[in-house]
């Protein structure tokens, strides 16, 4: 593969659908960006392959050229830098599940990672893959959105930081361009008292594509009484993972005892637009969305109450 990297010059001209396929596994991000700028749409980036290869075998599309990120060590790191957490794009679900820092600062991201697939899938699948695959049911996406994640996109020309909420535009559709590489997920470290809840509903515990998911993150003001920030994000209820902004507006500035959980649950039910599919009907999803929102609020409330006492 090192050898084929040397063949890069002039490849673009001779490339055809039927032509020799190329497999690149560079060690540096810069090399990967070079390759992307030359091949653009004619190359597919592969990390864990747990989504991509299933789609490829189903022949949803042809892939002739591969850009494998496995040798880029930089992308496999989880680190804290100043007041933010930087998660490399090829950090696996197992790493997220087991990282002490993630468990400490972003517990429901760790829990969501633990709910993905099976050991085999968690050991290979990556956070970056979950993001760019952009499934409406992607398990990590609601927690990332609820924690106010930003995605770092690099190309040869420039570096962009895109908030999670602006990244997804439809089922399996994002704003990422063919010459861009998602290199990092950046999460602001919470300095406030934070309470969160993750709920995934699926047909079974392992290897279930979510029927509906909810990530709720509530941050408290210094008095630990007033809600300073609240984000409720859901998966599998719309073309993309979504935040219910009305929840935020309703909760900020309030104390828990000023909130009607039933009403907030109803608000979630009213604001989502799920479809009927093999995993659940629209009606079912609407009913369940309300119930899990109430459950999440109760969980957040009781962990707040335990710490407040």
């Amino acid at each position: 593969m090192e050898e084929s990297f040397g063949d890069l010059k002039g490849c673009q001209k001779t490339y055809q659908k039927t032509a020799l396929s190329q497999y690149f596994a560079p060690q540096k991000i810069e090399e990967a960006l070079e390759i992307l700028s030359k091949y653009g749409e004619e190359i597919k980036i592969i990390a864990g392959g747990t989504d991509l290869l299933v789609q490829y075998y189903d022949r949803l599309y042809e892939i002739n050229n591969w850009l494998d990120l496995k040798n880029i060590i930089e992308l496999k790191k989880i680190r804290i830098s100043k007041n933010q957490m930087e998660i490399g794009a090829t950090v696996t679900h197992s790493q997220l599940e087991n990282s002490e820092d993630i468990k400490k600062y972003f517990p429901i991201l760790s829990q969501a990672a633990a709910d993905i697939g099976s050991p085999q899938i968690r050991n290979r699948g990556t956070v970056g893959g979950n993001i760019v695959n952009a499934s409406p049911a992607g398990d990590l996406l609601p927690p990332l959105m609820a924690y106010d994640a930003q995605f770092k996109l690099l190309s040869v020309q420039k570096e962009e930081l895109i908030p999670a909420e602006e990244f997804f535009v439809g089922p399996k559709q994002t704003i990422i361009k063919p010459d861009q590489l998602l290199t990092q997920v950046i999460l602001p470290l919470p300095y406030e008292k934070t309470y969160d809840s993750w709920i995934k509903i699926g047909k079974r515990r392992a290897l279930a594509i979510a029927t509906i998911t909810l990530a709720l993150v509530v941050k408290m003001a210094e008095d630990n009484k007033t809600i300073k920030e609240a984000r409720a994000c859901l998966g599998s209820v719309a073309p993309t993972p979504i935040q219910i902004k009305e929840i935020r507006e309703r909760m900020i500035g309030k104390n828990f005892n000023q909130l009607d959980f039933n009403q907030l649950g109803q608000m979630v039910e009213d604001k989502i637009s799920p479809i009927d599919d093999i995993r659940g009907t629209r009606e079912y999803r609407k009913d369940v969305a309300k119930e899990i929102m109430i459950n999440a609020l109760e969980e957040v409330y009781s962990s707040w109450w335990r710490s407040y006492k």
Partner: protein
Amino acid sequence: MTKLIIELTINGKKKKVETTPSTRLLDLIRDDLHLTGTKEGCGKGECGACTVIMNGELVASCLVLAPQADGAVITTIEGVGDDKGLDPVQEAFIESGAIQCGFCTPGMILAAKKMLEENLHPTEEEIKRGISGNLCRCTGYQKIFDAIRLAADRLSSRDGGRGEEDA
């Protein structure tokens, strides 16, 4: 089709294999290395029949491209146990009757072995989670749980009871 050569260590032996960019590790193991203990079930990473241990981690070999395994250290079911005898996990599966058609068994044993390497005193729940990526279509799960429990007990007593304190 583009050919490329990859090098990997499989069951302790170094191998150089000519393959293509889109060959699955599963096919390389079965067709090129003739290690047919690794099975293909669903081909989508859901059944675990193709499970192998790659660089110390349980993976579904149907969801790994051969060049992704370049430089990797891989253990298949053929690498479990040695000339002297079977692995304790294999013995426990036989004694517990944890095999019906046998198709899931290589993957089950590798998943069980990997789990026990990390946790010699698994709870029922942890055993279930450890093999949650492996389906048994004969549905002989109870005997598989029994086998893993038996293997865990034997391995932990062989361990001189070292793990007992944190049990």
